């Protein structure tokens, strides 16, 4: 049975459409990055997976159950963004409190050791750093030994060292056969820790594949040329072209095969003043998720 089955999910808040028809199937044991810019609908989708909000339309199943039922059985747990902790509890008390809410759970000492917070067990939550609080949330999420672990922007606001330490702990845990879905807007994080990347934009899935496949979509160079009245439709049909954008008299093309584009422009069109630039991974991600991008899903 699939860990996650999302069909035609829509979520609207008044006039704002946060999720605009997402389909997502995640098999048990996959580690999936839910990648997209802020406001792409990642958190809204995750909230429905956890039963924190109900879809406007569409269906969500977690291990074949409605989300709230899966939560009650400890099949799914989550590490949410900042907040969600009481300052006047100690780290250990917070874990013990959460543990007491489940029918069965892993021992408190075990999850604290796995999250690397044994040394700060008696510290007040209010005195913990952001990274320590996040590892505490991770320990709480491990308590029910969840089949599906959902992490919503788990390293938001952490410095590089804390981020790396956090992911080391998550990665060690993923070897236990758990399904993991994490939302992030850091492309390198998705690249480093996920088997599969689902790229979302404006509440829709725009790309879905292995990290290599999505990176191939995003990799490449940008070609800029002056060409009044450029033949945009034809440019889009060239091999390896990801996006074409017209800015006044110039045309901006993002392509994995920039040589073919350049050869075409110089040999067969009146285009001139050609400029080629390598796109960084982050630029490529921006290209994929920007409003003008034209990207095909690989799955």
């Amino acid at each position, binding site marked *: 049975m699939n860990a996650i089955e999302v069909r035609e999910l829509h979520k609207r808040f008044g006039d704002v459409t946060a999720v605009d028809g997402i389909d997502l199937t995640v098999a048990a044991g996959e580690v999936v990055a839910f990648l997209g810019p802020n406001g792409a609908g990642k958190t809204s989708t995750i909230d429905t997976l956890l039963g*924190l909000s109900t879809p406007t339309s569409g269906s969500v199943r977690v291990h074949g159950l409605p989300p709230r039922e899966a939560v009650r*059985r400890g099949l799914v747990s989550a590490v*949410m963004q900042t907040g969600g*902790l*009481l300052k*006047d509890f100690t780290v250990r008390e917070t874990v013990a*409190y959460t543990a*007491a809410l489940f029918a*069965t759970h892993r021992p408190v000492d075990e999850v604290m050791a796995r999250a690397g917070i044994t040394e700060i067990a008696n510290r007040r939550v209010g005195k913990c750093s952001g990274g320590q609080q996040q590892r505490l949330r991770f320990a709480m999420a491990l308590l029910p030994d969840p*089949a599906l672990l959902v992490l919503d922007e788990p390293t938001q606001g952490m410095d590089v060292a804390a981020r790396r330490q956090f992911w080391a702990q998550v990665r060690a845990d993923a070897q236990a056969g758990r399904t993991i879905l994490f939302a992030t807007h850091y492309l390198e994080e998705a690249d480093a820790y996920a088997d599969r990347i689902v790229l979302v934009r404006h509440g829709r899935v725009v790309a879905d594949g292995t990290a290599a496949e999505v990176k191939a979509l995003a990799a490449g160079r940008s070609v800029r040329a002056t060409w009044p009245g450029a033949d945009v439709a034809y440019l889009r049909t060239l091999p390896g072209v990801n996006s074409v954008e017209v800015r006044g008299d110039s045309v901006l093309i993002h392509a994995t095969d920039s040589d073919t584009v350049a050869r075409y422009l110089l040999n067969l069109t009146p285009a001139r003043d050609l400029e080629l630039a390598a796109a960084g991974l982050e630029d490529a991600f921006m290209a994929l998720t920007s409003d003008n991008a034209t990207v095909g899903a690989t799955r």
Partner: protein
Amino acid sequence: MTVALDRHVPLLGGFNGAVIGLEIRRMLRNRRTLLLSMVIPTVFFLAFGSIPGSGSGASVLVSMAVYGAVLATTSGGAMVSIERAAGWSRQLRTTPLAPAAYIAVKMATSVVLSAAAVGVVYLVAAATGKAAMPVWMWIVTGVAAWLGSLLFTAFGLFVGYLMPSENVMQVIAFVLMLFSFAGGLLLPLSLFSPALRTAASFTPMWGLNGLVHYPLAGGSFNWLWVANLAAWLVVFTAGAAWRFSKDTARV
């Protein structure tokens, strides 16, 4: 290695002794709550319990016990406000804890804390010998103050859901002070003008105050005390239930 998929749902929606124990420990760590519900009533009793004209020591004792117990239960209920502001309520919704079980935990915590508030001032009174009452009256008034104050758990929950703010405790301390004056807890109502006395009889602590003092003061039993208590119980419970359902629907 695989993760087991055969799972169970917790009994009683997650309501259990371990959770209540941790809640009590956390409340006892809150200095403001301890000060208002236990230290101040005790100090007031010691200060005013033996002043001529302020009523007998026993009467002041009962008033202070009610005041402390009401503060404890209201604070216990109003903790939901701080927990909502901190995002803890949302965190709890990613666990099996049922919303009704969460409320039950808050109420159970209040039961224990109000017993402690009454117990502390009664113990000090017994130790110092400043309140003269027959043994049965110690028990009856103590239990009445304890159980009657539970009404204010609903009040605390109502206010807690109404005001999602860290400042809710200051507001509550002030409002309860007003209720206490109007209820006749801090000054005898005979000092009020007749019009003011009538108005006071509609405030939430008037009925409780009359009932708890009745064994001590004697005289005729006033059914309006019961009516007052019952009416406010309905108002606070309905208010808390209304805000609570709004809160879970909003998620």
